[in-house]
């Protein structure tokens, strides 16, 4: 009978290989994950960024020093390389650094640092150091790494006030890494609401929203930032300035961008056959948004969002570098780079550029992840 043959053949085709079956029963989100995992660079970037965020979360523990602690005897000290071979040529299982000695040129007043090979300082994990409050409330003094003897060790050197650069980068990551996230999410959710209403309702709301975003995106951003930097009250706390900068960045970049893409996507999804079928089923607007529009649109949007974060990080860095964003004593990667505005730095302390390396690598990582997500969301790419 016809029915029996159809069933038999379907079963036959479906179960011929285990791998095929696995794909057959997979949900779209599983397939999304498989496709993403195939993108090596994106997976590596994801792991790297996860590590960066963990580092920023536990900054007090990961950083060997308090980022504000001034070591006036070691102003602009260079990074200390890690050694395994001691001065006698013997291999040491435990890595060590040499203490720094400095000499002052009497004529120029210039300080040069060199390694004191007679004073090896063995490194260790979980060493005692500056006291801090772990997670903000547990008093502790153990740091991830440092010299066992408690002598100074600066893996990436010291800044102009003798503060540990690595510690400052770790703390700076707190702001630089979260600002992008918060900005994008604030922007995206406002964009989602605005664009969603515009896309579903259309009409005058849609018309006005689109005109506003057009105006917003056509305003040159730099003068606006300048104006805002002046407008932000000087007596605001670091946190207030931080939030204000975030929201302003989000408003200009993300809200207008996201509301336009959300609107476009909603408008096209609305015309999809399956949405129309759902309307004819009697489904209400809420159900259609929840079960039909959102699920089909998030996989695309997540890639866009990821790709928007680097823009936010760059904007913050640029603003702070220009002195328009965050100001010391706040620490962000942009603030750290303010030290590089002096040409002298290039010559005497090139390691002060290291925060820029972090910015570049983090941005690349976000871009790779965004690429991976975009490929994974592409319905035309094969599993």
């Amino acid at each position, binding site marked *: 009978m016809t029915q029996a043959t159809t069933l038999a053949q*379907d079963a036959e085709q479906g179960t011929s290989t285990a791998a095929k079956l696995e794909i057959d029963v997979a949900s*779209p989100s599983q397939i999304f994950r498989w496709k993403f995992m195939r993108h090596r660079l994106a997976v590596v970037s994801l792991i790297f960024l996860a590590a960066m965020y963990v580092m920023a979360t536990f900054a007090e523990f990961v950083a060997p020093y308090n980022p504000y602690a001034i070591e006036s005897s070691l102003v602009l000290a260079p990074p200390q390389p890690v050694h395994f071979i001691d001065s006698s040529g013997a291999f040491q299982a435990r890595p060590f650094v040499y203490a720094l000695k400095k000499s002052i040129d009497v004529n120029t007043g210039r300080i040069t640092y060199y390694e004191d090979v007679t004073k090896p300082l063995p490194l260790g994990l979980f060493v005692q150091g500056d006291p801090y409050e772990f997670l903000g409330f547990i008093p502790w003094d153990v740091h991830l790494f440092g010299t066992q003897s408690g002598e100074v060790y600066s893996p990436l050197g010291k800044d102009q006030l003798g503060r540990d650069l690595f510690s400052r980068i770790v703390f700076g990551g707190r702001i630089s890494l979260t600002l992008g996230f918060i900005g994008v999410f604030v922007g995206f959710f406002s964009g989602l609401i605005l664009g969603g209403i515009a896309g579903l309702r259309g009409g005058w709301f849609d018309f006005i929203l689109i005109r506003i975003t057009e105006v917003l995106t056509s305003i040159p951003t730099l003068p606006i930032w300048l104006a805002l930097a002046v407008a932000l009250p000087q007596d605001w706390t670091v946190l207030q300035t931080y939030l204000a900068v975030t929201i302003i960045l989000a408003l200009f970049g993300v809200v207008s961008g996201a509301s336009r893409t959300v609107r476009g996507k909603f408008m096209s999804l609305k015309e999809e056959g399956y949405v129309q079928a759902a309307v*004819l*089923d009697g489904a209400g607007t809420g159900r259609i948004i929840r079960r039909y529009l959102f699920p089909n649109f998030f996989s695309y949007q997540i890639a866009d969002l990821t790709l928007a974060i680097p823009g936010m990080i760059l904007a913050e860095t640029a603003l702070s570098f220009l002195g328009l964003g965050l100001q010391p004593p706040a620490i962000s990667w942009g603030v750290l780079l303010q030290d590089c505005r002096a040409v002298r730095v290039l010559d005497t302390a090139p390691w002060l550029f290291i925060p820029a390396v972090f910015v570049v690598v983090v941005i690349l990582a976000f871009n790779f992840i965004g690429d991976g997500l975009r490929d994974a969301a592409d319905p035309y790419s094969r599993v």
Partner: protein
Amino acid sequence: MTEVSPIIDVRNLSMKFDRVKGFRRSVIGQVVAVDDVSFTVNEGETLALVGESGSGKTTTGRCLVRAIEPSAGNVFYRQGDSSVDVLALERRELNEVRRKMRMVFQDPFASLNPRMTVEQLIAEPLYINNVVSDRTEARAKVAELLEMVQLDPQLMSRYPHTFSGGQRQRIAIARTLSLEPQVVIADEPVSALDVSIQAQILNLLKELQRERQLTYLFISHDLAVVRYQSDRIAIMYLGRIVEISTRDEIFERPLHPYTQLLLASSPIPDPRMKRIRPETIGEVPDPANRPSGCAFNTRCPYATDICRSEVPQLKESGTAGEAHLVACHLWEAVELSQRPLEALDGS
């Protein structure tokens, strides 16, 4: 057959929209997608709406369930002894009617939400309309429906991307029939499918019609498919019905020159039936720019002055025992001159 009362009675249905341009949305023209269309569908029969692109066949079908809001007309839907005008209903009553009048769409790839499993897809209308209350009940119903369309119920946890076009169309049909409708509007249900699959779906639709006493409005551009599926056929051209009659009448005694052209143009899979094909018979004009008078006059070999000035009304030809309506000023002359399907057997 005694007098059958129609289950659907469409009267003077029109669907017009403005074509707008630019920033200020100024109206630059009016597109008449459906123009004063009237027809009836009897209970248990298949009425085919046939036409080329721009004929308004799909728009007509969608207007019946108000997937598109028509601009004028009535659509009377009869349930038992009472009859309602679908176009005048409030949302809630409309949803009641939509349970009984369901659609099957052309593209089985677009009409199934890719993020739902087959079970969710088929159960969705059941949940929305409170036909089932819990998952166990829903699964039992879904399994039954899948068997009805000859798919293995074990496949219900899969997502649509793992199915072929034909299988997806079966899922779409199961979904459509889950609410036990009386009327199914099938919009080109096989034209997106491979040739070898089309017959499966066509036969399935026929089988289901027999088992469940369904009434079909079958929308298609393909006369060959329509010949196998329908009891009556309405030929549409640029938003109007030009001819409507039983299948045999349409195929054996086509009265309208356009019907004759369609028949003569449809390929026949038999090289011994090769016909002389005219190379220039023009094409369908832009619906926004309809010719005056009979819309077909620009392509009609018999057109005269009256065809260019006066819109012909659909009238009973009175040529046969069965109803045969044609909208042509000249059908009597035309009928004598051309019998497309007989001429071609002449070898």
